[in-house]
């Protein structure tokens, strides 16, 4: 039984990997749907507020969202691409999170005391800051690198004045391959720290709210 379940150090790896895949799918669907709603709503609000003058900033999304425009029809295209990008980003982030967390998955549970029924009476989730920071930081770094590289590849690097604004927050960043690499390293560090903060605050509040369990 242990051999077929690929137990390593007492961990059922088959179940663990299936669990990570399941949650990655759930998070991808969750984040993708929310992102689609945000982009659709933002586009409609922009149209309602500024009419023909809308799309000065939102229209820039068309660089990464083929077919997108600040129009009623374009809002649906934007929602589609937002779902794809956010869903993929989140699912991959969770897969990476699970991989970094590995067999320390028990650490993310609130209590080491088993619940009567983990399915029907779930425990409360905790976050593992370091794993979360490493996962989302890596994805954010890759996103910045590839999005900047896309601007370089399509030949609009010198026109990308808005992307260049990142240099205000990421010293050394520029719309170039080397600038993208440097920016990726810096954004990893920033996101890593941000995730640590998020996890710390979240876990602290969870402990305060559930300290009797």
């Amino acid at each position, binding site marked *: 039984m242990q051999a077929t379940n690929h137990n390593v150090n007492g961990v*059922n790896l088959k179940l663990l990997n299936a669990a990570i895949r399941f*949650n990655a799918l759930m998070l991808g669907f969750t984040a993708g749907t929310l992102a689609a709603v945000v982009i659709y709503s933002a586009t409609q609000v922009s149209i309602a507020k500024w009419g023909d003058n809308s799309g000065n900033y939102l229209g820039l999304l068309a660089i990464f969202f083929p077919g997108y425009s600040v129009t009623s029809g374009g809002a649906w295209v934007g929602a589609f691409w937002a779902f794809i990008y956010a869903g993929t980003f989140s699912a991959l982030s969770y897969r990476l999170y699970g991989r970094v967390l590995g067999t320390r998955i028990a650490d993310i549970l609130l209590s080491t005391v088993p619940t009567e029924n983990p399915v029907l009476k779930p425990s409360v*989730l905790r976050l593992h800051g370091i794993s979360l920071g490493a996962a989302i930081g890596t994805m954010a770094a890759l996103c910045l690198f590839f999005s900047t590289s896309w601007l370089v590849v399509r030949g609009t690097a010198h026109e990308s004045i808005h992307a260049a604004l990142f240099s205000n927050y990421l010293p050394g960043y520029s719309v170039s391959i080397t600038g993208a690499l440097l920016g990726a390293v810096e954004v990893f560090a920033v996101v890593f720290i941000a995730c640590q903060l998020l*996890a710390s605050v*979240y876990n602290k509040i969870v402990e305060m709210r559930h300290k009797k369990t």
Partner: protein
Amino acid sequence: MNRPVRDHEILSAVFAKMDVPAMSVAAGALCALMLFLATAILLLQTVPEGYPVGPHLSTLAHYLPGYEVSWYGALIGMFYGFLIGAIGGFAIAVYWNLTHYVALGVMLISSAELAD
């Protein structure tokens, strides 16, 4: 440190529910800090006399009434950042829990049908 992890603990981790108030407050706090720092970093940079500070970031005022790229605006931005982050965190937590419940329901129904 690396104690054996039992199957029910893995299942607990899969179906663990996100604490909605905790995620709302945590996300709100993070967004508040981010918006404050985004404004503060621009204010702390040296610019030539008469040069506009944060002309692009200031367009946030279209969506966040009262916001401006100033120290006072940074505080206003913190408030809005907390609000936006809290709403986002609330939505993520609620939606995360909802999708798990729905998936669980589908699995239970499927297994009940298979048992029949």
